[in-house]
């Protein structure tokens, strides 16, 4: 075995020197480099996004409790060198003169917030600015709703329990105001030290205590692990999954884009390695037969090649990872402005994954044909006509299966991974059939073209199986390029387009039924676009089918908190544009009078609700029961008014109803708000511009990151093309030399080659354009949920880039051969 290893290293070194391994080594290095660069980049972008998302918690981790947070949790935070802050929140009545208002009071300690920032203004609708620090003792910050409801302004005094507070600023933004935008009472923020004096917190008071924590990633991870086993009743850990659905949707989509980039690079790397590995194997068949003839045992030969392949994949893998790491660091600059905190270094996962992919792809695609050599009679050294064991794709079966598993793993999402694997298999099969058909059609054209083209066509038609393989290899490379340039641009534009500049940035809630017509008139008088009003009824889910539900029934924290609070129910007649039925059906006119629900898919999954289930809500003290008729997918990051639960029109009319709408307010027309609130004093205007800005930032950064990451994927695509051209060289060398021997001029041969490569390229371009269009559609429609637009450029670019690119590159690759005497080429092959 030792001897085999030594000999194998020696042979490897000799082959490297002879240039034999260049294509395979290059394919491996670029493949691993692109996978690891994409991996590192994705890792960092995800970390950055995580940080961004953590702002929504105001921390990296939260412990929420219904009693004061245990001392040991705070102590351990110090030991783990985590920063911490505390908040205490409860609902209480505020008094100002003769007015009173229920408010959500939040008392905070010094370091609050640990992530994100507070922003305040000096007056209603005045300019806002970020602020460090918290309200001084004896003062409080109130949000605009509270000021409006109590008719007070900064400088005035309000009463909370036994204490008086001076309003010192208008609270515009707090990072961790999570959950449902519309179900919370107005906010009062004060200093934690002032709470005891209010005497509001007594035994039995409903109070939420939070311990906010932030710090190094691994410190947080260790702390989380330690704490999760020690949580007592009424205590829970909270993470970003409780963030707003809009931001969560944007984050999810961002991850999918990046994951897609990574997956495409894995796929391309695999194709490049497979192509190069096939050539490697074919060129080593004779060597294997000769080794056996010279007395090498089968196991010895197996060892030699396994060691060679492992060594090659390891060396190329390490080089590739190093290049990948170096390349990704440019991305850090790109993300620099995205997060205030310093990014932790990326994990080692991309290195492992890069090495593994290289190894699996190389072994999967190169080893089976080499190992199958025991089926080649040694007699092949005497009779070359004896067949080779490589027949069809079956030899590569193991390679494909392992590779598919790798893709699913990389996707991190079984559904996405399987989509891609199945899509790839189906695409390859379909494209193979198309390529076969095109090759057959080509035969018909032979009689009608000149000698060069006839030679080109004949070459393609003579080896249809080989030609189809080559068209597929070129096609996949080109498809990737098309997908990465044109389709990617379309998809990104679609995403950015999903949140246009004039997307609604203000919501109005609490509109009373009798105000509807005057509100419409107000908007018309102000010269603003007409608004759409949706009825809204608040209810709490109490029974699912015949079983009473309580937060304790759910392990999932998000599910538990959804049960705990009141939902906004609406009744809508026509399915909104940005909603899509995923199961069941939307109501028909004859459903009026029936109590039916349409439930948002995400919440249905969280709570385990299916079509046909019976839901009972407690609305204003009465039970309202109905059947789930459909589940819907909602485009949360469209920022339009959307509801988790919609009921049939009219079914909710017996219950107290208010209305909600959204509209876009430009920065220049802020004064409209003052008039709006004066005309309709009871309504509440909610400003979502800050969240939108956050989502936009995510989109912009991720777009940049995706563009960057795709550069590597592009490189992987080019490697496929290079490997494919290399792989075709051997076959053509012999033909060209033979033609020259027969007296063909250099020119004639070049024309013939050019004709052949251009034809191959055009066919591959057709195949690639078809694949890229279909894939683009599938991705837009089913994976990223973005509108798909047909792009004719994909076809034009595919065909012309294929014809010109493959034509020139393929011919150039063979030009050097023409400079040498033909015998040399004949001897080589």
């Amino acid at each position, binding site marked *: 075995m030792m*001897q085999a290893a*030594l*000999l194998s290293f*020696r*042979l490897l070194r*000799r*082959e490297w020197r*002879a240039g*034999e391994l260049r294509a395979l080594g290059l394919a491996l290095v670029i493949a691993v480099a692109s996978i690891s660069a994409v991996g590192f980049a994705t890792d960092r972008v995800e970390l950055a996004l995580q940080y961004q998302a953590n702002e929504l918690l105001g921390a990296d981790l939260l412990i929420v409790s219904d009693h004061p947070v245990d001392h040991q949790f705070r102590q351990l935070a110090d030991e783990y060198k985590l920063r911490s802050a505390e908040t205490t929140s409860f609902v209480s009545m505020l008094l100002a003169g003769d007015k009173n208002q229920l408010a959500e009071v939040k008392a905070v300690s010094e370091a609050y917030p640990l992530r994100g920032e507070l922003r305040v203004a000096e007056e209603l609708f005045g300019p806002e600015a970020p602020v460090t620090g918290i309200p001084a003792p004896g003062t409080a910050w109130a949000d605009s709703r509270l000021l409006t409801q109590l008719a007070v302004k900064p400088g005035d005094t309000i009463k909370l329990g036994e204490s008086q507070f001076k309003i010192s600023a208008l609270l515009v933004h707090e990072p961790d105001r999570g959950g449902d935008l519309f179900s919370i009472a107005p906010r009062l923020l004060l200093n934690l030290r002032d709470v005891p004096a209010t005497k509001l917190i007594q035994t039995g008071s409903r109070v939420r205590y939070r311990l906010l924590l932030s710090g190094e990633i691994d410190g947080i991870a260790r702390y989380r692990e330690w704490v999760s086993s020690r949580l007592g009743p009424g205590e829970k850990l909270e993470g970003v999954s409780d963030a707003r659905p809009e931001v969560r949707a944007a984050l999810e989509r961002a991850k999918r884009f990046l994951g897609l980039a990574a997956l495409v690079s894995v796929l391309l790397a695999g194709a490049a390695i497979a192509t190069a590995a096939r050539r490697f194997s074919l060129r080593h068949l*004779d*060597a294997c037969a*000769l*080794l*056996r*003839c*010279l*007395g*090498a*045992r*089968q*196991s*010895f030969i197996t060892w030699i090649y396994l060691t060679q392949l492992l060594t090659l994949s390891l060396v190329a893998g390490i080089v590739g990872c190093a290049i990948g790491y170096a390349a990704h660091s440019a991305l850090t600059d790109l993300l620099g402005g995205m997060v205030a905190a310093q990014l932790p270094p990326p994990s080692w996962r991309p290195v492992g994954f890069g090495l593994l992919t290289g190894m699996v792809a190389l072994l999967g695609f190169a080893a089976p044909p080499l190992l199958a050599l*025991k089926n080649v*009679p*040694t*007699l092949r*050294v*005497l*009779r*070359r006509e004896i067949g080779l064991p490589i027949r069809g794709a079956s030899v590569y079966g193991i390679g494909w299966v392992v590779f598919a598993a790798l893709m699913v793993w990389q996707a991190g999402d079984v559904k996405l991974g399987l989509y891609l694997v199945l899509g790839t298999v189906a695409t390859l099969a379909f494209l193979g059939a198309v390529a076969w058909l095109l090759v057959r059609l080509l035969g018909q054209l032979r009689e009608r073209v000149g000698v060069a083209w006839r030679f080109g066509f004949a070459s393609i038609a003579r080896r249809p199986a080989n030609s189809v393989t080559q068209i597929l290899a070129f096609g996949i490379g080109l498809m990737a390029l098309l997908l990465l340039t044109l389709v990617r641009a379309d998809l990104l534009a679609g995403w950015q387009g999903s949140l246009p500049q004039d997307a609604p940035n203000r919501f109005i809630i609490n509109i009373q039924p009798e105000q509807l017509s005057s509100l419409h008139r107000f908007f018309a008088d102000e010269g603003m676009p007409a608004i759409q009003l949706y009825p809204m009824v608040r209810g709490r889910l109490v029974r699912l089918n015949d079983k009473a539900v309580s937060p304790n029934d759910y392990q999932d924290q998000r599910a538990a908190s959804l049960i705990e609070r009141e939902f906004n129910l609406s009744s809508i007649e026509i399915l909104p544009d940005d909603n899509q039925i995923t199961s069941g059906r939307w109501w028909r006119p004859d459903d009026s009078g029936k109590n039916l629900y349409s439930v948002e898919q995400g919440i249905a999954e969280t709570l385990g609700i299916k079509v046909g289930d019976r839901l009972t809500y407690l609305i204003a003290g009465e039970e309202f029961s109905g059947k789930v008729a459909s589940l819907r997918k909602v485009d949360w990051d469209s920022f339009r008014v959307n509801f988790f639960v919609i009921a049939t029109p009219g079914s909710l009319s017996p219950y107290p109803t208010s209305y909600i709408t959204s509209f876009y307010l430009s920065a220049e027309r802020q004064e409209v708000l003052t008039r709006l609130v004066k005309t309709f004093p009871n309504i509440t205007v909610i400003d979502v511009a800050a969240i939108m800005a956050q989502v936009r930032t995510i989109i912009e950064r991720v777009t940049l990151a995706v563009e960057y990451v795709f550069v590597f994927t592009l490189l992987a695509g080019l490697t496929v093309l290079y490997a494919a051209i290399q792989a075709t060289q051997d076959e053509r060398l012999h033909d060209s030399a033979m033609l020259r021997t027969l007296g063909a001029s250099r020119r004639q041969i070049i024309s013939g080659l050019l004709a052949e490569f251009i034809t191959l390229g055009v066919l591959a371009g057709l195949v690639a354009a078809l694949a890229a269009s279909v894939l683009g559609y599938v991705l837009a429609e089913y994976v990223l949920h973005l509108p798909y637009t047909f792009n004719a450029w994909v076809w034009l670019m595919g065909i012309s880039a294929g014809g010109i690119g493959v034509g020139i590159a393929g011919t150039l690759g063979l030009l050097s051969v023409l400079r040498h005497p033909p015998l*040399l080429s004949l*001897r*080589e092959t």
Partner: protein
Amino acid sequence: MQTEGLGKQVAGPEGMLVILEDINLQVAEGEAVAIVGASGSGKTTLLGLLAGLDTPTTGRVTLNGRDLFALDEDGRAELRGRLTGFVFQTFQLLPSLTALENVMLPLELAGRGREAREAAGEVLARVDLSHRLHHYPKQLSGGEQQRVAIARAFAPRPKLLFADEPTGNLDQASGERIINLLFDLNREQGSTLILVTHDEALAQRCRRRLKLEAGRLVA
């Protein structure tokens, strides 16, 4: 080496095709034997069977007292590595190895890696290729390539040498030189030579000639 009732049949489109039938022969140590015959007479098949590169339909081959086909493929490979050398019509040099490395290969395979370089250099000097040690096969002429192949065959000092049309791809001058080298080295090393050729002149140089016609030994 001895064969008894050696035969080979293959399935053809019109039923079984007899390629070799009832071959009985004996080759003594140090003998030089030429197997001659027209194209398709079964020469190369016989050589393949004698060398254990292929398996017979009937009969057996005994080499150095051992039944070749009682061994498995690996056993035969081991025996080949220990006892035999080959010279092929198409040279069969590995394109990625230099002349020196090609000659070193059988020695390395036999676990004689330490002495390989020196021994290979010596044999290459013997075939007048000292100036071509680091050339790749494609940088060598056909005659030179076959000399490298001869050096490779003789480097491990085999007891038995098989040569399959060694001059088939060469011009007359190169061919003669190769033949001289082959017989000289054979004599020097005292090895047994089994040579397949259709070239009568070449066959004349062997002490014994066996003629194949339609798969049967006729002389």
